[in-house]
């Protein structure tokens, strides 16, 4: 039966190759496009989370809606130690406080963020955008956004006074020397951010072993949910873990939109090819009515004839899929290692929109979904196409089929 199926495909080799080529081409296109998509999402998520926000954050539940100074995580050291036992996870504490930032006569509202520079630098990209000076190295140094520097008329080396209200309403005051100026490209950040070493900020605002958030970075983003599930039981009632999807809902939404658009396009393509396959099998039935009549005259049952054609369909789609994946897999693998330069794809604008310098190349990523979806759809489609076009063999009357010369 396999032999018969294979020989029948060879009988009209041109059509077989054309149909298999169509299947192959659509598999190539769709699997490549889907890999490119998943690669670009990965980069997009990576770039966005790596900038400043992190892959996930742990904070006090009520802090999310109303970030008040006293809504802190307690016993941060102990929690950090517990979390450090989890494989593939890095944790940084941050404290944040609203304050009035002034230099000489000028004052502005700002957000003082206390960070562990040495640790964060290794993982986050915002520190690559220091345009003047350097990140703070000492407890009394600070780095400010470029717009704030302009508005205050401040430069590296100038002194900055920070005044706010500490815990339990006490006045918090600190003086920082500007060690660097950062330009994130996001006006809201550039105008308000004051980065200072976490120790100094915590002390100024009377916070002891406390933080407003723990920023989480994972080594492998696909493990994020698994790691989050590991963390969840370690957190007390009052605390909550938000992943990047919750922290940056717009990114997730735009990815979902893009995916939906992609699926629409892919479905159209696959449906189109499936119709071409239907056409092929309608032709097969038309050309071989006599042969099928003979099969039945010899005692074959209609379902056996249908089975035979199903077999041919399976061979045909396997051929097409092998062709498509045979081309797309090496291509994807190659491009995964070298990347596709974005400026050749008119991606300059996209880079600017996302405020990322690091994303000049896009790397397609072969996932099970991106590689298996098109083959699976095409194979099922081909079987169905063959089925709908050959159910009509049941209507073939062997006597009339054989009579027709």
């Amino acid at each position, binding site marked *: *039966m396999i*032999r*018969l199926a294979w*020989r*029948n495909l*060879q*009988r009209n080799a041109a059509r077989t190759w054309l149909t298999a080529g169509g299947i192959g081409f659509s598999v190539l296109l769709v699997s490549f496009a889907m890999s490119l998509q998943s690669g670009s999402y990965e980069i997009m998520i990576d770039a966005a989370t790596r900038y400043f926000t992190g892959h996930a954050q742990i904070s006090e539940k009520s802090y999310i809606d109303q970030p008040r100074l006293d809504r802190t995580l307690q016993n941060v050291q102990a929690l950090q130690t517990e979390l450090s036992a989890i494989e593939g996870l890095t944790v940084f504490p941050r404290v944040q406080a609203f304050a009035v930032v002034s230099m000489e006569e000028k004052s502005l509202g700002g957000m003082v963020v206390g960070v562990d520079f040495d640790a964060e630098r290794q993982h986050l990209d915002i520190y690559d955008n220091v345009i003047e000076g350097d990140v703070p190295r000492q407890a009394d140094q600070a780095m400010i956004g470029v717009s704030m520097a302009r508005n205050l008329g401040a430069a590296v080396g100038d002194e900055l006074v920070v005044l706010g209200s500490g815990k339990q309403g006490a006045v918090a005051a600190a003086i920082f020397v500007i060690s660097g100026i950062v330009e994130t490209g996001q006006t809201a950040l550039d105008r308000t951010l004051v980065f200072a070493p976490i120790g100094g900020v915590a002390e100024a605002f009377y916070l002891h072993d406390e933080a407003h958030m723990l920023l989480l970075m994972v080594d492998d983003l696909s493990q994020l949910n698994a790691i989050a599930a590991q963390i969840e039981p370690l957190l007390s009632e009052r605390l909550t873990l938000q992943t990047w999807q919750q922290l940056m809902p717009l990114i997730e939404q735009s990815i979902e939109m893009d995916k939906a658009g992609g699926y629409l396009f892919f479905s159209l393509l696959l449906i189109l090819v499936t119709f071409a396959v239907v056409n092929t099998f309608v032709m097969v039935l038309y050309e071989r009515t*006599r*042969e099928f009549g*003979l099969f*039945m*005259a*010899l*005692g*074959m*049952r209609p379902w*056996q004839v249908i089975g035979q054609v199903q077999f041919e369909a399976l061979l045909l789609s396997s051929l097409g899929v092998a062709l498509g994946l045979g081309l797309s897999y090496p291509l994807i693998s190659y491009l995964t290692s070298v990347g596709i330069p974005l400026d050749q794809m008119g991606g300059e604008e996209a880079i600017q929109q996302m405020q990322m310098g690091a994303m000049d190349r896009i790397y397609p990523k072969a996932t099970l979904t991106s590689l298996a979806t098109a083959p699976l759809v095409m194979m099922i489609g081909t079987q169905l196409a063959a089925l709908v076009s050959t159910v009509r063999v049941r209507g073939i009357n*062997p*006597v009339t089929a*054989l*009579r027709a*010369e």
Partner: protein
Amino acid sequence: MTDSEQNSSTTAPVVACQGVQRIYQQDTVPVYALRGADLTINAGEFVSLAGPSGSGKSTLLNVIGGLDGFDAGSVVVGGVDLGGLNAAELAEMRLRNVGFVFQAYNLIPVLTARENVEFILQLQGTPNQERRERADAALQRLGLGDLGDRRPGELSGGQQQRVAIARAIVTEPVLLLADEPTANLDSKTTEELLGLLRDLNPQQGMTIVTATHDPIVMGYTSRQVAMLDGEIHQDSASAD
């Protein structure tokens, strides 16, 4: 087949048709292809079915072979009343009990001669090894021992028809039905083919019915039946 069926087929006639009618509806006009044909054929007979074109030869063969239905009368083949069988049972009967040879050789073009013969054994579910042996033996019988690996397109008309006969007899059917098997062959090839058919006849006790116009064919058969207008017109077995 059970033993009792086999026994009855040696005593009872292989084919018993009585008052068989087959009416085709052509654009609402009824065409009487068979209008009450009576025919009884005993085991081992080699019968020619002659008659002008349109006299109903093919229709009668198809009805006897369970390929076509009928509208009145009764058809009993190998002791089984075909009137009571459904499509699946008729297909099964064709597969097990009847060998068909058509005018246009009707081989499967993509398969070799041997594969064409094996094809029907495969439908019967015969295991690989046995299938091959039996196919080779059938081809050998028809003098095609060396040509098993050729495709139909690489064979002459006479050779193709011999492959078709090999395919028809490889299952050792009770009944071999041939519809103008030599119509496309020259007289020399026709004689060769009929010689082979005639030899099959006593060797296997195979009952053969062949439709034909050709006097040469009739000369080879043991009994000549003539049809006219869908009825049996003359029969050498009942001739005076």
